C-alpha cells in the first residue's frame, strides 16, 4: 500500500504530514490539521474514521510538529488529549515509538494520519519503492 506525504512545503518547516493514500485527495490546511490532532474531528469527509498517530511526548519530532505545524506548544496538546481522555469525550492519539513505525502504521491503517521528518522522504525512496510521494504543499495555507 502506498503512503502519501503532505510535506506542506510552503511552511518551510522540517516536518511532513503523512496520510494513508485512501485520502490522498484531502486538502490539509492548518484548521484541518488542528482539528485532526486535537482529536476534535473524528472522520474524513467520506465518513471513514480518522486514526491519528503521534510521536512520544518530549520527542524532538513531536515538539517540532506541535510548534511548526500546529502552531502550539507540546504541553498544550498534552493537556488537550488528557482532557479528552479523562472526561470520556474522545479518543487519544496512538503513540508510536519511531518514525519507521509511524510510516508503517500510517501506511497500513485506513484513515491514518501522522507526521515524519522531511528528510526521511528522500532517504527512504530507494528502500521503499512502493511509497508514493505526492507533495501537497499547495494546499497548505499556513
Amino acid at each position, binding site marked *: 500500500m502506498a503512503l502519501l506525504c503532505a510535506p506542506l512545503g510552503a511552511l518551510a518547516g522540517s516536518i511532513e504530514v503523512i496520510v494513508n493514500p485512501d485520502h490522498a485527495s484531502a486538502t490539509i*490546511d492548518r*484548521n*484541518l490539521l*488542528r*482539528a*485532526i490532532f486535537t482529536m*476534535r*474531528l*473524528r*472522520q474524513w469527509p467520506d*465518513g*471513514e*474514521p*480518522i*486514526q491519528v498517530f503521534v510521536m*512520544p*511526548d*518530549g520527542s524532538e519530532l513531536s515538539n517540532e510538529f506541535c510548534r511548526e505545524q*500546529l*502552531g*502550539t*506548544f507540546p*504541553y*498544550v496538546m*498534552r*493537556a*488537550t488529549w*488528557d*482532557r479528552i*481522555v*479523562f*472526561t*470520556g*469525550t*474522545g*479518543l*487519544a492519539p496512538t503513540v508510536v515509538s519511531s518514525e519507521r513505525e509511524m510510516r508503517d502504521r500510517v501506511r497500513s491503517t485506513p484513515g491514518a494520519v501522522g507526521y515524519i521528518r522531511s528528510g526521511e522522504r528522500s532517504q527512504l525512496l530507494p528502500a521503499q519503492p512502493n511509497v508514493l510521494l505526492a507533495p501537497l504543499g499547495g494546499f497548505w495555507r499556513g
Partner: protein
Amino acid sequence: MADPFFNSSPSRLPIHWLAPVMLGCVLCLPVEALDYQFHGYAAQGYALSSGNNIFGDSTGGSLSYYEVGLNAQIQVHPRLLLAAQGAIRDAGATDSGVARLDYALMDYRIVSGADANAGIRIGKVKNPLGFFNETRDVIFTRPSILLPFIYSDNQNQRDLVFAAPGVQLYGSAVRGRHEWSATGTASADRYLNEVDEHLLVVLPVPSSIQMKDSWNGQIMDSIDGGRWQFAVSIYYARLVLNAQYPSVPPASIYGNFGVGVDVISARYNAERFSLTGEYAIGPNRDFVTLGGTVIQNFRIVADSGYLQGDYRINSRWSALARADAYFRDRGDRGGHAFAAANPGTSAASRYAYDLTAGLSWRPNARWGVWGEYHWIDGSATVQPLDNTGRVPADHWSTLMLMAGLRF
C-alpha cells in the same frame, strides 16, 4: 447550609439504564467498526500540616490521600462514542475511598467538520466549570495537588457540581485565530445520599435533600492554538430539604437553597511559562421553615480568585507559585461583621488566603512526582469533619507530596 460554595461527597447515582443502552449500541454495530482505548491513573499523596487537618489526620503526617481511576472509550462509529470511568479517591472526610462510577456517557456527534462540530452527550457527564473541574481528580491534569479555592477541594461538591446524570450539548467553531467552544448541561433531579447530606447539613433527625433545576454552561475561546484561553462558566442548582422535627405534634422542616457558581477564567501560555487566573462568585439563597414558620431567609455571596504562574524549567521539572483567596461573604471579607453578630466565632473563619510554592518532576509521560507548600491565613476552607474536636487554627500550613502513574 449557608456556605455559598457548598459542601458534598461521592456520587453513586442510579444510572442503571445506561449500561444496557450502551451494550445494545455496541452489539448492534459491526465489530470491525469498533475502536477502543483504556486509560488510567493512580497517585498516592502525603500531607503534613500544622494547625489543621486536611485530607485526613495530616497534622501527624498522613498517607490516606490517594486517587485511582480506570476508563474505557469505545468509538463504535465516528459519530458515536461510548465512555465510562470508574474511580476511587480517599481524601479524609470529603472522599471516602469507595469505588464510584465517575462518568458513563454516550456521545453522538451531530455536526462534524474542521471548522465546526456539535454533538450531544447523554449519561453521567462531567461538568465544565473553570479550567480544571472536569479533570480535577487526576494529578496529571490539574494545576497542583491541592486545587485553588474556587474548586472547593476540601469541601467536596462532588455530587453537586463535579459530574451529574443528564444531557449535555456541545459545539465548537473555528473563526480566524479563535476556536470557540460551548457546552451546556441539564442535570437530572436526584436525591443525595446520606454521606453527601452529612457534608451539607447536620440535622439530629432523618432528612432528605433533593437536587433540582441543576444546569451548567461554559463558553471558551482558545486563541492562536491555545496561547490565550478564556472561559466563562455558570452553574446553578436548587436543593430542597425535607425533615420532621420530633416535637409534639411533629413539625416539618422545609428548606429551599439556591446555589450558584459563576467562574471567569483566563490563561496565557508561553514556551516556558503559563499564567492562569480565575475568579468565582457564588451566590447562595437560603430559605428554611419550621412548621410553616420562616426561621431562615437570607442571601449570601461568596467569592474567590487566584493567580498562578507555572515555569517549565526544562522538559522534566516545573515550578509553580500561586496566590489564592476565598471569602464566604464578599460583603464582609474580613469577617468582622459576622464575628460581631456571632459571639464566640472567629472572623478568620470567614476567609482564607493561601500562598503556594510547588515543584514537579515528570521523568516521562507516565510518571510524575509533585510537591508543594501552602501558607494559609484564615480557616474558612478548613473541613470541620476532618477536625472534629479541634479549634480551627487561623494561621496554618501544609506540605503536600504526591507520586503518580498514568497510562
